[in-house]
């Protein structure tokens, strides 16, 4: 009898403790309300940006990791989209993101476009990002960037 109880205990223990505690993702919402559904895959995002020409815009919703955030206000962020980075700004300058979300995952919804960023503007962003004077001075060429004007962002906590 004792052996049976012990055996039953061990089996119960193994089964019970193996049960996965499914983690519910929680989100912090910024800007307009958006859902976490119908996201483009990373390949689709890369492909869409590849086909965009300066002046084109297209609506996109996808998730990505935050590489960098404006350290002055949180008024822009750079997202890792595999084949490069996408510069995200927020519609009508109407909302900002927390300044401490580097390496966090976000879902963004908005208008994607490609643009050319002047040397002056790149230097301004570098300054906002807390880059050194040397790094700022090293910016000497106009850069083509992948951009997104987000109307809503979900931050995965």
């Amino acid at each position, binding site marked *: 009898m004792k052996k049976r*109880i012990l055996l039953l205990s061990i089996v119960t223990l193994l089964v019970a403790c193996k049960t996965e505690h499914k983690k519910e993702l929680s989100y912090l919402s910024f800007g307009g309300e958006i859902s976490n559904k119908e996201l483009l895959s990373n390949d689709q995002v890369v492909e869409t940006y590849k086909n965009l020409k300066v002046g084109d815009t297209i609506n996109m919703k996808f998730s990505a990791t935050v590489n960098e955030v404006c350290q002055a*206000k949180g*008024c822009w962020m750079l997202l890792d989209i595999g084949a490069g980075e996408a510069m995200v700004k927020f519609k*009508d300058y109407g909302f900002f993101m927390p300044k401490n979300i580097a390496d966090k995952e976000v879902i963004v919804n908005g208008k994607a476009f490609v643009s050319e960023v002047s040397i002056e503007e790149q230097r*301004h962003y570098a300054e906002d990002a807390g880059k050194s004077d040397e790094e700022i001075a090293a910016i000497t060429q106009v850069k083509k960037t992948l951009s997104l004007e987000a109307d809503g962002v979900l931050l995965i906590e």
Partner: protein
Amino acid sequence: MKFISIAFFLFSCQNSDLSTTKKFIPDMYEESEMTLLMRSIYEENSKMKKGIITGTPPNRFPSYFLNIFNSKLTNDKPYSEKFMTYSKVYIDNVRTLFDTVSSISLKTRYNNSINSCIACHTSECTGPIPSIKKLLIK
């Protein structure tokens, strides 16, 4: 024996429930005096635009606009020379809206004032430019 088994079970499974996830505290931007002022100026300009379009133009220079020369910037950043120059141009342009003998249309004078905002933001802080452009009268 039964007691040991139950105790073992409870103890082991309790450990798996111990959550070590830290609560994320968002570090949000606290609006500077200049940001708040810019927001008020934006609102005032929206009213002016509406007034000019509907034939009820502004009749008094909003004196608080002059706080542009002494409001604190984000992180107490010092004013650049460009910022001071553009601010002066902007204030001068706003004053022209109240020039009752001007030969230039009110719409043009108003748009000139908005364009001076855009010119300044092009070199100082580009983020709000798309919103500021919406203040222009077409």
